[in-house]
């Protein structure tokens, strides 16, 4: 499509920053597509950033529940074989993790 296209709502470096925060490795092509798509979606969403919401409190929960507490009574834990059974890498009865640096 030729002609005017609106400036992207989100720039490349922001896409990369957000992808890093979310631990998503995106290929350069994916980054580009993501930038366009997110910009498009944000373009639609952006309407909410201009609405008058002064004095309107946020809704975190739609239910009016409070103080849902659990008695401090132990329940059975999983047998270790079950805790580890889906683990891709078991080392010393623990979950293996690659080098961290």
């Amino acid at each position, binding site marked *: 499509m030729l002609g005017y296209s609106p400036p992207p709502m989100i720039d490349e470096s922001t896409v990369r*920053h957000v992808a*890093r*925060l979310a*631990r998503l490795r995106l290929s350069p092509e994916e980054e580009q597509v993501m930038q366009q798509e997110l910009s498009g979606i944000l373009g639609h969403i952006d309407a909410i950033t201009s609405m008058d919401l002064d004095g309107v409190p946020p809704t*975190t*929960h739609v*239910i009016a*529940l*409070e*103080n*849902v*507490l*659990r*008695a*401090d*009574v*132990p*329940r059975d*834990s*999983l047998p*270790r074989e079950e*805790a*580890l059974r889906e683990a891709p*890498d078991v*080392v*010393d*009865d*623990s*979950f*293996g*993790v*690659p*080098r*961290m640096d």
Partner: protein
Amino acid sequence: MSDFEPVIGVEIHVQLSTHTKMFCGCALSFGDPPNTHTCPVCLAHPGVLPVVNEEAVRRAILIGLALGCEIAPRSIFHRKNYFYPDLPKAYQVSQFDIPICGRGEFVAVRDDGSEIRVGITRAHLEEDAAKLTHLGGRRAGAEESVVDFNRGGTPLVEIVTEPDLRSASDAVTFLRQLRQTLLFLGVSDCSMEEGSMRADANVSIRPVGSHGFGTKTELKNMNSFRFLERGIEAEITRQEGILRDGGRVSQETVHYEPETGHITSLRSKEESHDYRYFPEPDLVPVAPDPGWVGELRGELPELPLALRRRMVGEMGLTAEDAEVLTESPELVAYFMDAAALADPKACANWIRGELRAQLREVGTEPWESRVSPAHIAALVDLLGAGTVSVPAAKEVLAGMIETGEQPDAVVEAKGLAQMDESDLAAVIDALVEANPDQAQQLRDGKDKVIGFFVGQAMKQTNGRADPQAVQRLVRAAVLGD
């Protein structure tokens, strides 16, 4: 004399010693085989949800009350998002802008009796991470670390102070006394070595007389008070050096290496943290009923500072007595039980002195021994009535430790009752006669020799003599006083 003044605030993480984890029913454990205390919830399997442990809330409120904090009428949990292998959900359920305990104040007392007043910014509930162990090349291949989720999800209270501390030693005094308070509350084991109490310090310096704040660094992962004190001192020195050289302190996390005394930066190459806090949709607010908070206030034990003041002010103890006896809640209870039955000062002397000394030999504590506080009170009474001498009382104590019997029974069994004066006079007369040289020395004014007679008399009477009576009778026999 330094031109700079340190400004220090601390953040303390306290593991609560509840039966179960913060958000699931797994039992808390220490030292059990790895991954034997886990469930779908604390392993963050797909589809699980957290449920708040009521006892953890109760203990957080107790801590808040002990620190003089406002208890929030309604507090909520937030998610703190970051990726780390010891954090199975990749977010920590914590509290953000509405913590359960708001502002408070804690008063610590220095050795010289002066006060350190420390503002408490907040205290909030959260969950602990799991245990990540670095194998350090022990295993070939890519795996370098392993995770044990037994500890993951342990309830934590994080206490944050205002930057009110002005020296490393004040910081440590504050932390020791805070720890003591938490122990009295019975909310945590507070073991720095085992990690059930962990302290980070925010350190900055500023020119003396200035009221602004310098750039602060965060000193992390201190596992003993000693290292913490040294670490803060080292960091203050480092910052002073930077400023004197015209440099700038950069905001970063630093680590103190006890072996070398060096401060190292933990600054990572990664992106700056952006925890993307948002209200935890899986949990509903905690709104402690004011009646409940009132009940908990009533349940608060007498805390160390108040106790020490009462011991000195009302019970006639020295500041040092009070300090020693408030070392642990168990010791306080033991002393208080004894002091209710006999002279408090004498009870204090015997408990902190001879009782603990003798028990140390057998490796036990007063409240775990066969000697009850009532036994101590009875012993103090026997001494007061002159029934036993001080040396004999020490033997009685040994007997009580061994047999668990009442002191009068031990006195009876061992024949430790003080001799009456006429029997003692006969023993002294015989002693003077048998030791003419020493008697002559006494007549010549060598007063020290009296000790010889006391020693001999105690030996011959198996300690049943009153040393003061011995002295008096020896003088009478030799000098005719």
